[in-house]
């Protein structure tokens, strides 16, 4: 048992990218899945959006939990209506990570600026009555 643990520790230490990237991602994934599929159905207690609790307004991330739940049921249209920003930002974020890793720092920071502006504009618009369709909507 002790030897096996030592082997695992050595393996994790020798694979830095596994320890630093994939392990936290895996833990977050399992934690997220337990939250969505075990905790929520059992208790119904959601992590609240502090911004919405205080101001009563939608923030750019509101609808994200419902979006993930809809995606897990492969209901893409409903997921899109809960939070459409992520559908545009997620591919851009992958491009950003690729640019940052390829050493194209300037292009990466321009893209990051565009994504931040998109998130802020989306957050403002979904609280304006004429753009109500941007707020989380059940279809």
């Amino acid at each position: 048992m002790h030897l096996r643990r030592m082997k695992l520790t050595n393996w994790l230490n020798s694979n830095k990218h596994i320890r630093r990237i994939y392990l936290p991602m895996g833990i977050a994934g399992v934690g997220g899945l337990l939250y969505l599929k075990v905790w929520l159905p059992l208790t119904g207690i959601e992590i609240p959006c502090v911004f919405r609790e205080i101001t009563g307004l939608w923030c750019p991330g509101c609808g994200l939990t419902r979006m993930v739940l809809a995606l897990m049921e492969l209901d893409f249209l409903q997921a899109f209506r809960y939070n459409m920003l992520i559908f545009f930002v997620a591919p851009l974020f992958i491009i950003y990570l690729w640019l940052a890793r390829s050493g194209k720092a300037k292009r990466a920071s321009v893209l990051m600026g565009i994504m931040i502006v998109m998130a802020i504009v989306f957050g403002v618009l979904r609280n304006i009555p004429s753009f109500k369709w941007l707020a989380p909507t059940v279809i």
Partner: protein
Amino acid sequence: MRRNVGLAVFLTIITCGIYGIYWFIVLTNDVGRLSGDSSFTGGKHFLLTLVTCGIWSFVWSYQLGKNIAAAQERLGVRVTDNSTIYIVLNCFGFGIVNYALAQNEVNKLVE
């Protein structure tokens, strides 16, 4: 970069938090540069905080503490890992105290 903590807090208050956004971004960039972690950037963490209703700020708080500790180790000064304190402060809505504490550490490192 060295910044006056008191002035930064004052500017954050009088601009209703807008200076706080700028402070968050440049402080994160400074810490990332000092620790040598090129993936610890202000823009990325600000965006992720925005799209997760603020939940990402807990990850940021933890990474901030770890990166400051890495920077201290890199520069050969006494290491103080405050990541847990930053998370606890963030839980109680004292994000600005995190900025102030982290800026204080950065000021010591760039002296």
